[in-house]
């Protein structure tokens, strides 16, 4: 990423608002996410024209139309491929990909999987509302077993995907989770994603007021949020809870224990210190498995490990090849090749 030049104007949220009417349902969680991203971009020190927002199809995927940057609303499930192409063409761009639980984990699962393992330098926002919003409320790959929708009138029977575990299965280098009701947290996570070199994957709990209203309320609702979420911070002990302070202790290889703090310090209780940089996936798998209602749901950066980014490496190979050739090949070299004869 080119550093901001001196002459560059200071941007603010307004610069990222398009004149287009926003066409989500009133009350949709997407508004808050839009707002948060519009507030994040001006703070990244990147010229406005270097942002690209790319999406698939779905309510969430209307996103690019509302961000006043370059935007591409592509086709269902395939946005990661287009975003990859953009980064190959121009690695200096800051590319943000918006996808839904249906777009990203239903039809688009394979592309997400491969983008993650490739570790290309993109930021992926997965809006998880556990429903197919745009097509009017069929169940999605993240809907819990038993979800009744028009296509599953007797309740769904397939096990939902855990989006964090899925990303871990692809050995993704940056995995985070945030919620549409907490702008501050969203912005913080978006910035962390931006800083990460390689692919950044963020699950966002998002509310669909029309087809799946309050789906996350048991986790992040006003009543439950303090007791049912665990805000992770690197280097900080995992303590949470309002009604009762508790800490997460993890000794063996199973699920962690939730210990009442009873006023003790985390050290005294042996509370786990969050370390997103652990390279093996065991620790992150444990975090992924902390699910409502048995555990507080971890939000924040769950995993952040260092691996070379695909786009950087492709450039390196290009430069190495050119250097080895003693400069970029010209048309004459190309056309003549190695074996010619003269008539």
């Amino acid at each position, binding site marked *: 990423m080119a550093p901001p030049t001196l002459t560059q104007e200071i941007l603010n949220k307004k610069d990222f608002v398009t004149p*287009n009417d926003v066409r989500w349902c009133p009350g949709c969680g997407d508004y808050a996410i839009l707002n948060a991203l519009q507030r994040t971009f001006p703070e990244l020190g990147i010229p406005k*024209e270097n942002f690209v927002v790319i999406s698939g199809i779905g309510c969430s995927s209307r996103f690019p139309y509302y961000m006043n940057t370059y935007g*591409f609303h592509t086709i269902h499930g395939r946005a990661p491929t287009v975003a990859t192409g953009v980064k190959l*063409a121009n690695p200096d761009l800051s590319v943000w990909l918006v996808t839904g639980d249906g777009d990203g984990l239903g039809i688009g699962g394979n592309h997400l999987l491969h983008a993650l393992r490739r570790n290309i330098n993109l930021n992926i926002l997965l809006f998880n509302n556990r429903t197919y919003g745009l097509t009017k409320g069929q169940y999605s790959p993240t809907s819990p077993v038993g979800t009744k929708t028009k296509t599953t009138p007797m309740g769904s029977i397939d096990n939902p995907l855990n989006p964090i575990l899925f990303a871990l299965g692809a050995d993704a280098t940056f995995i985070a989770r945030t919620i549409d009701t907490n702008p501050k947290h969203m912005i913080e996570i978006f910035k962390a994603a931006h800083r990460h070199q390689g692919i950044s994957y963020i699950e966002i709990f998002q509310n669909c007021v029309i087809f799946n209203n309050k789906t996350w309320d048991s986790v992040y609702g006003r009543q439950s949020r303090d007791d049912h979420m665990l805000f992770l911070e690197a280097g900080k002990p995992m303590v949470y809870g309002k009604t009762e302070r508790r800490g997460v202790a993890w000794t063996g290889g199973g699920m962690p224990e939730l210990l009442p703090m009873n006023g003790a310090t985390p050290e005294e209780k042996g509370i786990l210190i969050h370390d997103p940089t652990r390279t093996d996936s065991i620790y992150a798998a444990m975090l992924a498995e902390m699910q409502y209602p048995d555990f507080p749901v971890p939000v924040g950066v769950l995993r952040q490990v260092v691996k070379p980014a695909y786009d950087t490496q492709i450039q390196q190979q290009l430069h190495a090849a050119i250097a080895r050739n003693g400069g970029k*090949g010209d048309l004459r070299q190309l056309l003549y090749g190695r074996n*010619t004869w*003269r008539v």
Partner: protein
Amino acid sequence: MESESVKTRALKELQTVVVRFAGDSGDGMQTVGERFTESAAIFGNDLATFPDFPAEIRAPRGTVPGVSAFQIQFGSTEILTPGDAPDALVAMNPAALKVHLPDLVDGGMLVVNKAAFTKGSLRMAGYPANPLQDPQISENYEVVEIDLNFLVLEALKDFSLNQKNKLRCKNFFALGFMYWIYSRPLETTIEFIRSKWERPYPELAKANIKVLKAGYYFGETTETARNRYMVTKAEVEAGVYRKVSGNEALVLGLIAGAAKANRDLVYSGYPITPASSILETLAAHKHFGVKTIQAEDEMAAIGIALGASYAGNLGATGTSGPGMCLKGEFIGLATSTELPLIIFNIQRAGPSTGLPTKTEQSDLTQALFGRHSDAPIPVIAANSPCDCFETSIEAVRIALTYSTPVIVLSDLYIASGAEPWKVPDPARIPTIEVPFAQEGEPFQVYRRNPETLARTQAIPGQQGLEHRIGGLEKDPFSNVSYDPANHEHMTRMRSEKIERIADSIPPTKVNGEPYGELLIIGWGGTFGAITAACSSLQAEGFSVSSLHLRHLNPLPGDLGEIMENFDKILVPELNQGQLSLLLRSKFLLDIVSYNKIQGQPFKVRELLRKIQEVLRR
């Protein structure tokens, strides 16, 4: 027959010769075919080749499905096809004989490795008895039986290689022998062996050279063969030449086109026969600034290419039939967003997985209509290995000039066939100037160039030109629009833009008189065979002309007029009549279709027969 007469008949001069090497997949037939080709090319013959692989990676040794063949036609006159039927067949084992003998011309030369005709391999080939003992064979052909195993081991008896490795050299013995038959020089091949093996395996290099020469001398000293031939240089334009296969030429054209358009190239592919070598060849061209990526599937491949085009590079992708089925949705998006994109389809025989290692030209209607809704895009086709170069450049020109995806049709036959290619002067390749929108100037996403109707692209990173595009219908400002009249307008604009490409196409060339009794219209890889058949009938005084279409959508503007000047029209295709359908619909003429769906190219004689039949009607 006494040896006298043999000697006198030696060194007969021929204009063209067709040689086929056939053996087990492990016998190195492709290698010797390539060598024979190279030496013919450097000697100065014109030529065309056709390798014919088995579908399996390594079919069981000695079986019929495991046979691999390589055919070359070379000559002192213009060569248009690899030839209908071999004048000489080298058969390294009974299975190869079984598969290929039926093609050998009557009286043709048959060279066999006697040592390979063991009981076991005869049985594997399905021969109840040794066919070499069948008197019919020696009556019909000039049979040359050579005990290759014995001779090779003899030649290499002083070498430290083990027996298996020694026997591996026997293809070069056969090659040396054929060089003697056709009075070819050995230098090019010796040079090749040296440059390839001398460094890593010096002993092997020496052995192969020894055996090659042994094969040559074997011809010289034994006079086993009855005839020896001589094919003089072809009269070709002066210049620097190299050999190219179709896929190589596509790659060269693509890189050259992008360079001439001043765009970086991103090629994204997923392996599939016979398109894989495009990705592979481009991957070896990183030093030309070419970025390649092996995607997770064909949808990803085209999506990546489209993303690259969107960001200002030139995106290209390539595949074959099954992969094309997966690209339709993205082609629709590229059509709607009017972005440049190049899609190669190297056709193979279908439907479904079909015959993946056999040729066909049956994806034309898919190229024209293989996506939902009215979404016309340009379709062009290459007609020979060399022509792939120009076709690629033309694709780049159209894609950028008309802001559109372009489908380029090639096929297995031309993709893997090879020809000598006169290397063009890089400076003479026209530049393709399609600038991006200008920063600071007013920009409207779907403002159209009044001549081409193309839109101008602004790319991420350009200041002040930020905008949004996508697959929902848009008004000219790229706002989502449900306005009925706008949808009709945009649909018609998109179609009209494609039609306008016809204005930029040079006049159609007719091979022969511009009027007459019969016009043959072809497209794609049938060019050589049609032209050869047509020219030969013209020479005999028939009123036949032919034309070959590079542009299938839009069709050239002068086509209708040309067709009117002929009484009859014949369209030969390696499919069930796809171009016919298009031409009938467009011109309402009762076209005669000639269709072959056998996974094999047309033979010139098949066309001759059909043309004469149509003329007699």
